[in-house]
């Protein structure tokens, strides 16, 4: 927060009357930006601030001139209710656009589930590629009844179950990390993982891995493989949502820079 901007807001407050004047007194600390985040879920967030959502939160807090504080909770069942819903924090940096448990801002990136393979393997182009059927493929397992990960569902609907290996989201490390380690050990040939996790862990692999998004399957019932990601606030918190929308509009280039640093695969398009 520059002095100039603070001055402007004071003047503005003065003009609006005494009720807001008190809040804008020079001695008052700016209100903290309270972010809800998982303490151990790279590449998104980590308690040491090393995730890309931590970096975006930092950028946001600096931009708004507000101190950054976190409410940490593992992103499991009930995360939104126990953090945002319990008024312990006000913003979740990454949620899918249109996520029904929060109000969502304009999306600030769009990614896809991607096929991760050894760079030396012959590339697979489509879901019907006979090479795909021969691969032992790792998928993330969501762990909610009747909620397959999107590639898991598409593989099953293409009759591919015998070569599929599951990596539950619950575990010592992120499921994507375990799947990529399994590729490195030769236990599986490929994995179909959510882009940001695939990009981050593939870059840390000992041998070069290739990432590619397969074209959308023809099956009308197939779930989307691409998702736009936005920030989430409490439903009804219109004011904060507008502030965040404005931040995203103004600082999209800086956000893009952070995402590039973390090798997040991006796709063009609009929110699903």
């Amino acid at each position, binding site marked *: 927060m520059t002095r100039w901007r603070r001055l402007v807001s004071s003047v503005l407050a003065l003009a609006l009357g005494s009720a807001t004047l008190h809040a804008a007194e020079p001695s008052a600390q700016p209100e903290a930006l309270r972010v809800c985040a998982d303490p151990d879920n790279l590449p998104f967030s980590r308690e040491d601030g090393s995730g890309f959502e931590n970096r975006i939160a930092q950028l946001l807090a600096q931009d708004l001139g507000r101190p950054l504080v976190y409410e940490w909770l593992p*992103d499991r069942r009930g995360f939104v209710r126990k953090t945002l819903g319990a008024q312990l924090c006000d913003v979740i940096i990454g949620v899918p656009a249109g996520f029904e448990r929060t109000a969502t801002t304009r999306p600030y990136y769009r990614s896809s589930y991607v096929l991760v393979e050894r760079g030396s393997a012959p590339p697979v182009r489509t879901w019907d590629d006979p090479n795909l059927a021969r691969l032992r493929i790792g998928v993330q*397992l969501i762990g909610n009844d009747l909620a397959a*990960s999107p590639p898991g569902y598409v593989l099953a609907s293409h009759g591919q179950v015998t070569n599929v290996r599951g990596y539950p989201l619950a575990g010592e490390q992120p499921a994507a990390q375990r799947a990529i380690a399994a590729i490195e050990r030769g236990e599986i040939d490929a994995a179909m993982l959510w882009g940001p996790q695939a990009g981050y862990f593939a870059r840390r692999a000992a041998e070069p891995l290739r990432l590619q998004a397969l074209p959308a399957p023809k099956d009308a019932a197939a779930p989307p493989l691409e998702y736009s990601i936005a920030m989430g606030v409490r439903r009804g918190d219109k004011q904060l949502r507008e502030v965040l929308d404005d931040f995203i509009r103004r600082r999209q280039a800086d956000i893009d820079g952070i995402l590039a640093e973390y090798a997040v695969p991006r796709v063009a398009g609009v929110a699903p």
Partner: protein
Amino acid sequence: MRLALFAAAAFAFALGLVQAAPAADDDGQWIMPAKNPQSTRFSALDQINASNVSQLKLAFSYSTGVVRGHEAATIVADNTMFVVTPYPNKVIAFDLTQPGAKVKWQFEPKPDAASQGVACCDVINRGAVYADGRVFFNTLDAQTIALDAKSGKELWRARLGNIKMGESMTMAPLVARGKVLVGNSGGEFGVRGWLAALDAASGKVLWKAYSTGPDKDVLIGPAFKPFYASDRGTDLGVKTWPPEAWKIGGGTVWGWVSYDPELDLVYYGTANPGPWNPEQRPGDNKWTSGVFARKLETGEAVWFYQFSPHDLHDYDGVNENVLVDAPWQGAPRKLLLHPDRNGHMYVMDRTTGQVLSAPPFVYTTTSTGVDLQTGALTYNPAKQPRAGETVRSICPASPGAKDWQPSAWSPRTHLLYIPHQNLCQDASTGEVSYIAGTPYVGADVKMYAGPGGHRGWFTAWDPAAGKPAWQIAETFPVWSGALVTAGDVVFYGTMDGWLKAVDAKSGKLLWQYQGVSGIIGQPVSYRGPDGKQYIAVLAGVGGWAGAVVAGDMDVRDGTGALGFANAMKDLKLATKKGGMLYVFSLEGGAR
């Protein structure tokens, strides 16, 4: 006294009663949640009976200080009452010889706080068990702990699972011949189910039997003689799955364990297969959603029967197995009674694993019956959940015709008293969802009342006739356990806070008391140090059914609590959070 006994015997003889007089062998204690290893929940005490139960009054009460779902049974032994709370799983001991039952000691196991995020359906615990001066219980973060019953001092603790992998424990142990039998929860997270026998003296694992995988892991060997051909073969726990899917295949053991001391067999159910969707796991997915009989000493499997092969609807097979010796079609038989989530009431021969009958005990659309020749459940393909489509009127809904809430058997009436629900659901493809940074499209499940418009049933089931003797329709799912006594009174709790006493023969309401919070605990009966009969129950709404209240859920989102929220929107108006012990007697005495 001798004269009285003689007179009673003569009276019994005159009436032609052939059953052993139960009152004589009840020591007045309640040392395990199901009262006895056969899991009958029958108290032979009869001071409180159908003609005087209307006089029942509050003797004392105690606030546990925890306001989540209280599903535990209170345990009574050595003039002491033991209560395990939901997370943080405090154990409180009450001295029953003191007026108002003073707290004798309290033990705090301090489970890992992260385990709260792992619990599927509220942070409940189903109770402790007492044996040989020790109290055994499980913690949400997957530990079994033994305490000295007199002092509350910790004797040992065994860490049996890893909460980071989604493994937790909520069930009540069973102790038999120096072995503590415990199982895990968390199938939806990719946990592989098991039952373990721990040495009661040290906590050392003596054997561990997995519910999936090769025969050596499942403890299947030469002793294994399943009744049906579909359960015979080598390594079916591997072959009935896609490669390696069994490694994270569920079949957890979060329900009840029974034991027949004569046959020396342990009986328990396995949970549904997970975390795969049905289309990702073609095959029967053994040994999930079924019942095992095992030798206590070695854990070797003796037989298995699968209630729901290749489960499609979240029909865990973990409900209680009530071991009953009763006439079956004219001849005495060793029976196992099991009201399953899939809607069928199984009467089995517990020596062989044969299904003798399996009629539906609720309105059922997902299956059309059980083939008694093959043992197979006949699914209705129209009710199979399909992506991209809405499937309506799936009955019973995912919590089943009956969930964890245990039933009670009276050897006097030969009826099984079943607390259960009357729920159906619609399933469709849902909105975009997100977990641990991973987006997906979930299933949108909405549960609602089944035929009749009420969500609960309390059913007195006559297994011989294959139909109810009587039924009580309840507004909310009946999520508490049942208790039946030799006074021919049946007790159960309701989610809107009533403890009810009904006539065991007719179902007539005889007495009721409303507590501060919904009752989902297990009522028990004991004889106090004063020689008087007491009824005890924990109140404190929650569990899967009550998560809307215990978890402060927004009921505008009907898909909350995996779709259960939709059926429970009005529970917030009917009750509130709480955690109370209530103890009743004919004399009362509470100030």
